């Protein structure tokens, strides 16, 4: 792991006298490598290493008896501060409060919608699930089955209406059923599909949501940056949800998205069941990314 690699770097160079820039440069190469192996975008990794390098060339490290441990501490701190940036609490204040769920195909949106419904119910709210994916075969059925499994109401008028009509119908239905939280599941879409990105921007206008959540598969590679940037520009999300964290991916996409958008990661999905939702812990994620 990174600590061992640093220890070796400094041990090998110890014979050369006081810690110097060469030591730090060598350690920084290890950091960059670890981040790239973890799927952190290479530009994000480069910028991150530049920040850490600057701090590591300070007196705290150079004068320290354990420079390797100092640098590990700096790397970890910088990671946590980026991952936990602007940890805004999840804002549910409207009535009904709207939450729109967006993201690439297969990222885990529909499953997350059910998890979110269970979560807000624990906080004393009454959620209504809205099936606004009119494209994927049996998507409406999938959300309806999940809604039944968690005993939550669902508005699923089928695939003959437009997404905007379904969203507006969902808000009306929430008022009718005295639900105070509208959770809108949308179809997976490519960040570069202009038509589909416009559709979601229109749906967002119709819903006026308090929260728009980008659901991102934690095993996403280098392209996570571009995905996040496009969704930010075309839709503007308020938070990120990382899914499939029960796997063994290092999850560098988390750092890429957090550092490029500055948006908080609000939830972590750790399984397929409606209960498999956790708060996101930046320090745990930092350790995971560093391997």
């Amino acid at each position, binding site marked *: 792991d990174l600590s061992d690699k640093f220890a070796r770097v400094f041990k090998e160079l110890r014979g050369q006298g006081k810690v110097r820039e060469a030591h730090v440069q060598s350690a920084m190469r290890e950091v960059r490598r670890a981040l790239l192996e973890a799927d952190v975008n290479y530009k994000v990794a480069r910028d991150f290493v530049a920040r850490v390098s600057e701090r590591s060339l300070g007196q705290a490290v150079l004068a320290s008896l354990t420079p390797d441990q100092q640098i590990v501490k700096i790397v970890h701190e910088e990671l946590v501060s980026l991952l936990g940036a602007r940890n805004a609490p999840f804002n549910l204040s409207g009535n009904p409060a709207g939450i729109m769920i967006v993201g690439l195909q297969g990222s885990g949106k529909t499953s997350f919608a059910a998890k979110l419904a269970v979560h807000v119910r624990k906080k004393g709210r009454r959620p209504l699930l809205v099936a606004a994916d009119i494209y994927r075969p049996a998507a409406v059925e999938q959300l309806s*089955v999940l809604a039944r499994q968690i005993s939550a109401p669902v508005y699923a008028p089928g695939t003959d209406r437009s997404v905007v009509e379904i969203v507006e119908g969902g808000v009306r239905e929430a008022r009718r059923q005295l639900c105070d939280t509208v959770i809108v599941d949308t179809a997976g879409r490519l960040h570069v599909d202009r038509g589909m990105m416009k559709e979601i921007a229109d749906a967002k206008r119709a819903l006026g949501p308090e929260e728009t959540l980008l659901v991102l598969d934690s095993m996403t590679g280098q392209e996570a940056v571009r995905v996040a940037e496009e969704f930010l520009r075309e839709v503007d999300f308020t938070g990120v949800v990382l899914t499939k964290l029960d796997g063994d991916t290092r999850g560098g996409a988390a750092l890429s998205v957090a550092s490029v958008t500055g948006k908080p990661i609000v939830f972590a999905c750790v399984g397929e069941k409606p209960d498999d939702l956790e708060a996101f812990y930046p320090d745990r994620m930092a350790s995971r990314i560093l391997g």
Partner: protein
Amino acid sequence: QILSGGALDEGAIEDLEAVLLGADIGVEATERIIERLRASTGGAAGAADYRRIIAAELLLIIGETPKPPPPAGAPRVIVVIGVNGVGKTSTIGKLAYRLKSEGSSVLLAACDTFRAAAIDQLELWAERAGVPLVRQQMGSDPAAVAFDAVQAARSRGIDVVIADTAGRLHTRVNLMDELRKVFTVLSTRMEGVGLEGWLVLDANTGQNSLRQAEAFTAGLPITGLVLTKLDSTAKGGAVIAIQQKLRIPVLYVGLGEGIDDLAPFDAEEFVAGILG
């Protein structure tokens, strides 16, 4: 800028390194490719030459894995596996349509008996492709459904059975055991089937694709890969390392969500996609 003999254009090399890393080829594979580039080019070469050398190298890695003929036996049974959400079910719908248009008779087996509406989803694809589907109740044993389906194909003289399985993370030991059981039941209790597994990988996925490939191919007869969502901006470069380590060919690529959006893997197009 004139380069004297032996001097390398470091700027061009850095740019190419960024292209390879950005394509999810991974730091280790990228390092090796760049090392070999440095070793194989003399001075006075520039960006265009480097690009050509790297393209040839990538083509060698990805193009040299032969596509094996389907295993002998009838019916041919393709079990489609992979982690959650990569595109298994959609790929099966597209594949059924393609094989049927190529003259094979196809039957689908709904062995994802776990996920909400998984069977309904496959059923809709079967209808679109115009092929029969064998299914049981949600919660039934996937191996039993597979057995049923192959038996039905046998009795109806159908050429190919394609079995859909539930998405599963390779870190879940019990789910990997369940998968192994599907293969075991078919290979031991169905004499003479041509059994093979195809692993579906998502082009958006980073280095975890290599972990997935290693885990899913351990002890299972995996003969091919399908790389989906190549219509996204991701380049799917993780298959380069998979080729180097496991030598399993990419057979098809997914290029969208429609029934026609499946194409045979073209190594040159793939490499061109990476290098731009």
